[in-house]
């Protein structure tokens, strides 16, 4: 007996196609960001600022998103949540991989002091500014409702961009200072990620935190079993890594701690484990940095918009805060670092917002697609763009 086929749900088909378009655009951009022409383009100072800050990918997202040709929609991005959780886990893992014991012990006390003072002051100022603007915008009187987004603004204020090529001329005469600025940016990224992760975690649920740590340890042991003590081809390494990160991201999403923190802890454990193909895996992950950043900036571009004017006020406050706070801390805390006028000019570099801020804001929007989170994402993007342009203008004048 021939039965009539069920009617095709055109809405579902359309949605599936839209999701496929977003995934394809993200993968295409990721591929383009690691090609030889992209590496060659990044040798030019202005292009270096655009690529290193992820702004070209963000522009692509804006053009393809609701504000441009409407090829990509925020709803389609949200449907890709499992994949973006994996992407966030990848970023967390990448940041955690920095914390190799030999590297951490080599950090001079001067740099620790600078990073810790910057992190504490930035977190305080950013959270207060974020909280004040959010309470004003929403008319809320209750601080607890705005706290997570305010803390997100605080975490986004921590640190600075480590990209210095666009400021060529600032760093050429002071390679030691340039290395310190880059290393400081890396350490601040660690602090920002931890703070941003904690801001979106319910710390009263200690059993979930213990569960996350247990999953991380199990994942690290499995990865060591798969890759330690023998040589594994690149394909095998990536497969083992994807499986492990999926486990960590999935478990973290299920137990409300978010994928960034769990994967960060995993990276920290794995980088201090010996042997086998672990170091090759680290190199593969590190080399994927521009591709992962491009994907998240593209998604940020698509997710922007549809909120009121208050994010512009928050962005203005955050840019103002950076302009006052960052050079002030840089000139006082590591005072002995700036030996001459040439190295002092590099203080302008620390005004620029760290790229992790955009990843943190995208993570917040992906976990809760509400106006406050989307507003903070818009504010973070505006702050990032404005703070990237400012040192370039300064450079033009000096």
């Amino acid at each position, binding site marked *: 007996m021939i039965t009539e086929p069920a009617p095709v749900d055109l809405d579902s088909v359309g949605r599936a196609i839209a999701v496929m378009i977003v995934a394809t655009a993200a993968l295409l951009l990721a591929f383009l960001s690691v090609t030889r022409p992209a*590496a060659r383009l*990044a040798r030019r100072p202005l292009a*270096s600022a655009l*690529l*290193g800050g*992820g702004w070209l990918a963000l522009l692509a997202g804006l053009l393809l998103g609701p504000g441009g040709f409407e090829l990509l929609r925020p709803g389609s991005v949200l449907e890709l949540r499992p994949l973006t959780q994996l992407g966030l886990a990848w*970023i967390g893992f*990448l*940041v955690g*991989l*920095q*914390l190799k014991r*030999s*590297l951490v012990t*080599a*950090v001079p006390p001067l*740099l620790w002091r600078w990073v810790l003072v910057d992190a504490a002051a930035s977190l305080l100022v950013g959270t207060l500014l974020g909280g004040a603007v959010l309470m004003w915008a929403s008319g809320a009187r209750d601080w607890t409702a705005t706290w997570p987004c305010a803390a997100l603004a605080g975490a986004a204020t921590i640190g600075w961009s*480590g*990209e*210095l*090529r666009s400021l060529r001329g600032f760093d050429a005469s002071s390679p030691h200072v*340039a*290395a*310190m600025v*880059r*290393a*400081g*940016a*890396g*350490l601040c*990224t*660690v602090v920002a990620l931890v703070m941003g992760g904690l801001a979106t975690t319910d710390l009263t649920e200690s059993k979930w935190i213990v569960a996350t740590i247990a999953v991380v340890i199990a994942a690290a042991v499995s990865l060591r079993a798969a890759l330690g003590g023998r*040589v594994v*081809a690149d394909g095998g390494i990536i497969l083992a890594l994807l499986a492990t990160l999926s486990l960590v991201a999935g478990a973290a999403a299920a137990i409300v701690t978010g994928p960034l923190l769990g994967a960060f802890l995993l990276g920290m454990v794995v980088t201090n484990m010996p*042997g*086998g*193909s672990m*170091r*090759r895996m680290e*190199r593969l992950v*590190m*080399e994927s*940095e*521009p591709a992962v*950043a491009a994907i998240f900036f593209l998604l940020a571009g698509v997710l922007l918009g549809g909120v009121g004017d208050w994010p512009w006020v928050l962005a203005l406050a955050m840019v103002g805060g950076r302009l006052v706070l960052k050079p002030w801390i840089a000139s006082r805390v590591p005072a002995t670092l700036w030996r001459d006028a040439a190295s002092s000019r590099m203080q302008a570099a620390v005004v620029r917002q760290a*790229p*992790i801020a955009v*990843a943190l804001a995208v993570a917040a929007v992906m976990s809760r697609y509400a106006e406050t989170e989307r507003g903070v994402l818009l504010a973070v993007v505006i702050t990032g763009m404005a703070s990237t342009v400012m040192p370039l203008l300064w450079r033009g004048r000096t």
Partner: protein
Amino acid sequence: MDDATSILTDGSDTRLLVLIARSEESFDPLVSALLDAGITGATVLESRGLANIIRMEMPIFAGLASLLPQATGTRVVLSIATTTRIDQLMRFIGQLPPERRPIGVTLPVESVLGLGS
């Protein structure tokens, strides 16, 4: 002129060996292979690949590694050795898994200066 050339020895039976070990894991068996082939004199230089330099100049999320740029695990081995020993070395290297084999070249040597007799 004679004084200047007298300190040089004929290098027709020797080759300049340049090997690049791409990681800590591939450097270790390379040292063993050099010793097994009887090449006991070599200069080892800490080095960085082009991809590492590009990444170091433009870190996005991870900039801490720029503090210790030498810790990449990549090393260049330079040595002047006889063709017999180099052939033996290549046989040892050929037994390594492809991932652990170094990149390398051998170049003809016209004359040698400063190596003990």
